[in-house]
């Protein structure tokens, strides 16, 4: 049990008469990238919001590192090292990269003044770690000058800084070009190399196939398929499975 960072058991959640999630089991291992796939309305958002503490489930249990938790909240999730990279990236574009990384959690010293040098160096280290090799950008660069993929990188770097052990990426490649998406995949590989885990949410199966170690497919609030990468020979096979599921509603175990 202790091998999982997060484990959800028999989670159900309904909004009025809509069953967003029904009896869902879901887990993320150490240094594992889980691809969470599903159509709009499949329950992906609800699932990750339960993990990040935004929504409380109606029934079911949440285990963090093997321990059952009660009164799960955003603050508790943060303390447990779970960071979410929101779909809108939550950046302030006219500010510098360093200011964005420390937004809301500024590195301060005497009387609340910012330790500018420390912030600069820390931001610099994070940027290099995550693969900003270009000399064009420094922590003083304005975020609006970055490409979409690089902005996503800043959002991910921010999540990494605060000792996240699990990073949830909500549709990180939406609205990105191919090369920019490639950059995001690079960031996700970085997360894994650091020994951290990630949940990669997308409805683009090809994107998920590239980076994930395991795939979980949600359909109408149920987990309909869970497979290790070696069990799925290709992305095309995954697409076929998905189409099967959509047509027949059958479950692949």
């Amino acid at each position, binding site marked *: 049990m202790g091998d999982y960072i997060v484990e959800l058991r028999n989670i159900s959640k309904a909004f009025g008469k809509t069953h967003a999630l029904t009896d869902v089991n879901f887990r993320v291992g150490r240094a594992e990238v889980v691809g969470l796939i599903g159509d709009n309305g499949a329950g992906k958002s609800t699932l990750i919001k339960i993990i990040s503490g935004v929504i409380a489930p109606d029934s079911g249990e949440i285990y963090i590192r093997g321990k059952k938790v009660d009164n799960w909240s955003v603050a508790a999730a943060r303390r447990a090292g779970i960071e979410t990279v*929101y779909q*809108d*990236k*939550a*950046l*302030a*574009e*006219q*500010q510098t990269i360093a*200011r964005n990384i*420390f*937004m*809301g*959690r*500024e590195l*301060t010293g005497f*009387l*609340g*003044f*910012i330790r*500018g040098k420390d912030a600069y160096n820390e931001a610099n280290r994070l940027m290099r770690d995550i693969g900003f090799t270009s000399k064009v950008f420094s922590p*003083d660069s*304005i975020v*609006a*000058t970055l490409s979409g993929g690089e902005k996503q990188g800043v959002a991910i770097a921010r999540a990494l800084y605060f000792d996240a052990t699990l990073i949830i990426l909500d549709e990180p490649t939406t609205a990105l070009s191919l090369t920019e998406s490639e950059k995001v995949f690079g960031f996700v590989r970085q997360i894994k190399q650091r020994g951290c885990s990630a949940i990669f949410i997308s409805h683009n199966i090809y994107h998920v196939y590239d980076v994930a170690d395991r795939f979980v497919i949600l359909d109408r609030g149920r987990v309909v398929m869970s497979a290790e990468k070696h069990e799925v020979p290709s992305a095309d096979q995954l697409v076929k499975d998905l189409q099967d599921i959509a047509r027949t509603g059958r479950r692949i175990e």
Partner: protein
Amino acid sequence: MLSRFIDRNRRPISAFVVLAVLLIAFTIANPKVFLNPQLYTAVFTSLPLSIILAVPLVFVIAAGEIDLAFPSVVGVAAWACALVIQAGGNHLFAVLAALSVGALAGLLNGLLVTRAKLSSLVSTLGMNFLLRGLINLGSRGEGIPLTAQLNDAPFRFIFAGELGPIPTQMLWAIAFAIVGVLLFNYHKFGAQVCCVGDNQESAREMGINVERVRTLTYVYVGIAAGLVAILSNALNLIFWPNTGDGFLLSTLAAVFVGGTPTWGGVGTVTGAVIGTFTVGFVTTGIIAAGLTGFWTQFFYGLIIILSLLGHRFNQPRYR
């Protein structure tokens, strides 16, 4: 190194260029007046009050809001200060009265914007009328002379005296501006103000208390208005019900001429101080250059438009 300095200080530098060009033009037009140090002493008497008001306005505007009520906040703070002095109260108490009345009025402005969710443009416009109305009602439009109480009091020398050739109110303004620059550029507060004005949803998602940060910017204006109220009473030795009224447009113009844009997220306190000098020299310069006072408003407008065009073409280019 130099290019990095220029990159980080584009706005104040372009504001400074405008001021330098203006001063050179005036000096060429009338070297006698503009090379005479007495002119500068004269300008430095009234300018400090505008500087003190311009500094916190940068924070409000960078946080994505506007404050049009500050002239009347100066008024109520000056009124409270004058009432205490007139009643023979302790002058330290008069100082505290001005600062706390200013801060409270600022807090009220902030809460109307952040908690009652009113448009800052309209609600502070309304508050400007409302507070001024209260002063007029309460004072029946009559001034409060303070000469007898203040003539030999330390209050007057501290706030409107001279230290060598420098008026003390200028020293207050310099100190206030330095604190403003430090807060804006190097403090958590300034960083959060910019994030809030830049993208309030992002700021919220990153755990910044957007409402609190915005409210504090209004309190900051209120404290500045309190200080201006004290300086104004000490300078004039009389309280007039219209105290502060003249600052509205010229101070806002100074902030924008200084390079703080209207859309929030960025701003420059140094630029606002430079902008105050630019606006302050226009009137003096026009008279000294031998033009009639009718040119004043024309030149104000011209300087504002030219400055904005300058800032517009001097922004960092985003790809």
